[in-house]
């Protein structure tokens, strides 16, 4: 007979270890998330380290080698100007992932900030939630289009076409996508605020900012992480949609969305050219989604370890 009591028994005692190991242990048990994680890491490595190994300039035109299928020299073939698709995929991935991650980070920061403030401070709740409703009521894609139209020129002249558009894109996606996070976070904060450990901290006299940092924020991390992963995915899609509508990055600047968009014209002739960016976007989004699923479980210490 084996007794496995929920409490720790003396025999089970080990040196305490970093809680992230526990998170990882739990995360590993989620097969989808693990596969997603491996794929995502692979993509990240390919995108970040790949260009150092595959040194062909993504903008280099080798006109004699245009429209080639996969060869040893060009494993993913070349485009209509003979630019190496592999190099372009890596360069494009860097941009797409950067857009995804940065705009997600922006929207998370905004969303968490507003959610925490609204949830924690009763006085701010009304105004901030009205503000959130307002943003929710603003039609997003149109607004995004309008913003891109309006500020694109100003920004690209100030920061240069690429950085300018990057800033614009990230800001536009970021400030039009924080509302869900804010709502979730607020809901969680409201619930957390009623949790007794917050009351316990209040009974100690913990000031608000420390309360938020110590008790509120760590406990809203898991919904935030989950919406983070979803955010990366939707930002990548949004960027590619904007590219499709001709409002994204400059055309010679590769992003996955742009590569896919450019390749759509050649769908009949060179289907593989659609395939690669399509696969990259789908894989990234899928893997990130699955990571989100896994994180949701792994970040919850109550599920973790059980």
């Amino acid at each position, binding site marked *: 007979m084996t007794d496995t009591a929920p409490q720790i028994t003396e025999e089970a005692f080990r040196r305490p270890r970093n809680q992230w190991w526990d998170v990882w242990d739990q995360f590993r048990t989620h097969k989808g998330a693990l596969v997603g994680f491996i794929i995502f890491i692979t993509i990240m490595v390919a995108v970040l380290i790949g260009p150092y190994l595959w040194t062909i300039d993504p903008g280099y035109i080798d006109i004699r080698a245009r429209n080639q299928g996969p060869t040893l020299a060009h494993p993913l073939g070349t485009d209509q100007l003979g630019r190496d698709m592999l190099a372009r995929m890596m360069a494009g991935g860097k941009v797409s992932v950067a857009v995804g991650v940065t705009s997600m980070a922006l929207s998370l920061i905004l969303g968490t900030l507003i959610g925490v403030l609204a949830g924690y401070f009763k006085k701010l709740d009304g105004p901030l939630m009205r503000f959130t409703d307002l943003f*929710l009521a603003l039609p997003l*894609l149109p*607004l995004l289009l309008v*913003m891109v139209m*309006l500020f694109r020129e100003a920004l690209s002249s100030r920061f240069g076409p690429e950085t300018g558009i990057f800033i614009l894109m990230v800001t536009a996606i970021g400030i039009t996508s924080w509302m869900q996070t804010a709502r979730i976070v607020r809901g969680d904060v409201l619930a957390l605020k009623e949790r007794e450990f917050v009351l316990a901290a209040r009974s100690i006299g913990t000031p608000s900012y420390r309360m938020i940092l110590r008790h509120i924020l760590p406990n809203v991390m898991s919904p935030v992480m989950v919406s983070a992963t979803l955010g990366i995915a939707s930002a990548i899609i949004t960027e590619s*949609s904007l590219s499709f509508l001709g409002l994204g990055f400059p055309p010679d600047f590769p992003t996955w969305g742009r590569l896919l968009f450019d390749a759509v014209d050649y769908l009949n002739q060179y289907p593989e050219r*659609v395939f690669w960016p399509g696969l990259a976007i789908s894989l990234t989004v899928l893997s990130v989604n699955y990571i989100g699923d896994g994180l949701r479980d792994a970040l919850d210490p109550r599920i973790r370890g059980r």
Partner: protein
Amino acid sequence: MFTYTVRRLLLAIPTLLIISLIIFLLLDLAPGDPTAQLPLTIPPEVKEKIRQSLGLGEPIHVRYFLWLKQFLVAEPLHVFDNLFGTHFADGMQRVISWQTRSPVADIVAQRLPQTLWVVGMSYVVGVLIALPIGIISAYKQYSWFDQIGTFISMLGFSVPTFFTGVLLIVIFAVNLGWFPSIYDTTHVVDSWDAFVFQVRQMIMPVMVLALYNAAQISRFMRASMLDNLGQDYVRTARAKGMSEKVVVLIHVLRNSMIPVITVIALGVPQIFGGAIITEQVFKVNGLGQLLITAIYANDIPMVQTLTFIFAVLIVLFNLIADILYGILDPRIRYD
């Protein structure tokens, strides 16, 4: 319930006003104006006159109220006049598109049918696909059906519609020749054959959008079902000897539908504005395409009107979602 509804309605008004102001300001501050499209040969004085006639010379708040009046008073009155042959709106300035020089409302009215047909239908189809998938996925959690459902719905969000759209066209229109690749907005359904043609031309755009919509809604449905399947009342229903069909399709479903219905209601406004890309791909020249051409053409009245209409719809459906919530959930019904 009544107070609740009225309260929500009243709250919607300031929201809409602020939204209208934001939209107005955002576009108003945009560089470019309609006279930019006029040939440069027109002397500046004349240009200035044209600007004046378009109301561009006025201070910003005057123009805002003018626009509000046009939008909220003049346009509805025009519609009223058209319907009942009255003349209330005579002499009132309508909101005129800079690009086509015609009343914005007329064009919007012209575009509505195809948008409703295609995007609306896709939403309905999406919901009809999503609900059973969500229910089965949740009921058989972690089964192969659930796993595949999860994968497909994730794929649903992760593939951009401009890609799936073109892919479908190449397969079904070009290679198989089953469906037309270009949507005929002038098509009138007046016979069986015409109806069949309408169905054929709708299939591809509807499927592309339905996949996307279904992906999202089925995830919600699944989560909501899962939440409810674990509830105590489910056990009570089973303890009463109710069949699984009754337990799942009556007891659990009714409860799970409460959040999902609101999600569905909140998604309705997207029908009007969210399908820009699909409309582009299939040449369904609906409201989305109207908006994008207006943006390209710097047609600010059109953009303002459309964005505002979208905002009104979003607020409206928010309201409907809230009220539906109240109707479906007896706990909310009484304030």
